[in-house]
């Protein structure tokens, strides 16, 4: 007892900190680790309140989700964290874009690392989005009441592909040029307004300086902000739709478990 009176443990210091007026003004839930306090800590945080305050333990196991949605978010965060530093060295102009990309590869300290991390994360994100969708599809997790969140997911797939596509032009090399030539010509196949979409997308009739700038703005501003908006809705809907899909917790399954006789009679009646 005398000993604890003299020296405080790390946890005690942390508890003292969490009891201070400044801390309490920011995080209102306060000290203590009761279920209520922990739930409040989630519910009262602007970022975490999108999520459920409680999660079924079995939904945290690898087999439940393979963490594919979380991994997708992880790649998205890596892409933001690496993409912003890349913007400091990259000029989206026709004479400079290719040279800047080469500078990032060969001259800028850690430029190679950042660019490659951005590139590989982009590939991984496309893969993970598809894997996540397959997992959700084959588990049947897209069904009522989660069908709207599936729709949001399809929009996010589109955002991912558009981000991937717009980023592809930015190195301004032969691969980028012809890929965007081909891709933008696919847009011309839209009935009636195809040619107009092609013209507006490129800001001209061919892949040139206007197209580079437009794709840069789409890639760095419009599409990431739109994606973040829908990601927020996507996460919030998980909570609103009753948490992650778990077959044993579905209302139909629970009704069947509660009244096994009803199901048995129904089978006999057939």
């Amino acid at each position, binding site marked *: 007892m005398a000993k604890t009176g003299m020296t405080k443990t790390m946890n005690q210091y942390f508890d003292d900190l969490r009891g201070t007026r400044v801390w309490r003004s920011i995080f209102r839930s306060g000290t203590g680790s009761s279920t209520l306090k922990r739930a409040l800590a989630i519910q009262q945080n602007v970022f975490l309140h999108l999520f459920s305050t409680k999660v079924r333990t079995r939904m945290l196991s690898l087999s439940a989700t393979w963490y594919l949605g979380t991994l997708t978010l992880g790649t998205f965060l890596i892409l933001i964290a690496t993409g912003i530093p890349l913007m400091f060295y990259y000029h989206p102009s026709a004479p400079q874009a290719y040279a800047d990309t080469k500078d990032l590869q060969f001259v800028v300290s850690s430029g190679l690392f950042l660019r490659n991390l951005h590139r590989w994360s982009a590939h991984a994100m496309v893969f993970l989005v598809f894997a996540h969708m397959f997992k959700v599809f084959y588990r049947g997790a897209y069904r009522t009441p989660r069908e709207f969140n599936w729709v949001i997911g399809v929009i996010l797939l589109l955002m991912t592909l558009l981000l991937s596509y717009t980023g592809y032009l930015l190195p301004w090399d032969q691969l980028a040029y*012809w890929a965007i030539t*081909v891709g933008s010509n696919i847009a011309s196949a839209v009935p009636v307004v195809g040619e107009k979409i092609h013209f*507006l997308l490129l800001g001209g009739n061919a892949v040139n300086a206007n197209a580079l700038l437009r794709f840069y703005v789409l890639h760095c501003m419009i599409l990431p902000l739109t994606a973040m908006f829908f990601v927020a809705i996507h996460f919030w809907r998980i909570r609103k739709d009753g948490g992650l899909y778990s077959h044993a917790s579905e209302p139909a399954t629970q009704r069947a478990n509660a009244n096994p006789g009803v199901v048995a009679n129904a089978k006999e009646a057939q």
Partner: protein
Amino acid sequence: MADEIKKNDDVNRRQFFVKLGLGSLSIAAAGTAAFAYQYLDPNVLYEPSPVVNAGKPDRYPLDSVTLDVNSGIYIIHSQEGYFSISAVCTHLGCLTAWKPELGIIACPCHGSKFEQNGKKIEGPAPKPLPWKRISLNEDGDLLVDRSTDVPPLARDSFVRV
């Protein structure tokens, strides 16, 4: 009496102002959409001129097919005269190449093949390579107008020197 008049009137003061407000917002939204569309639609383009000077005709020997990579056109000197066709594949816009050993025009992207008069042999291209208007200027240079298609094999689609 006053109640009857009010019943016949579908719109009361509050509804009128709601409609007025929503109507104004709709008009403003439509104006913003038109404004945004016009803003994003460039009025001036700093693109190369569609008219290409292909130089003196004697640069192109008889029975030759010459690709100008920068302008994306072929200058072909045939028995009938000089003519020009687009080198941009009608499938998805890749630059095609003349294969002298096979005597065909081939696209590297998705394998479309064309005859030297632009007619499609095989592949996903939906249309033949279009012929472009060709003429001679005062200096005797061949001019190709890439913005104007002309009928294939027509008499006026050739230049004879």
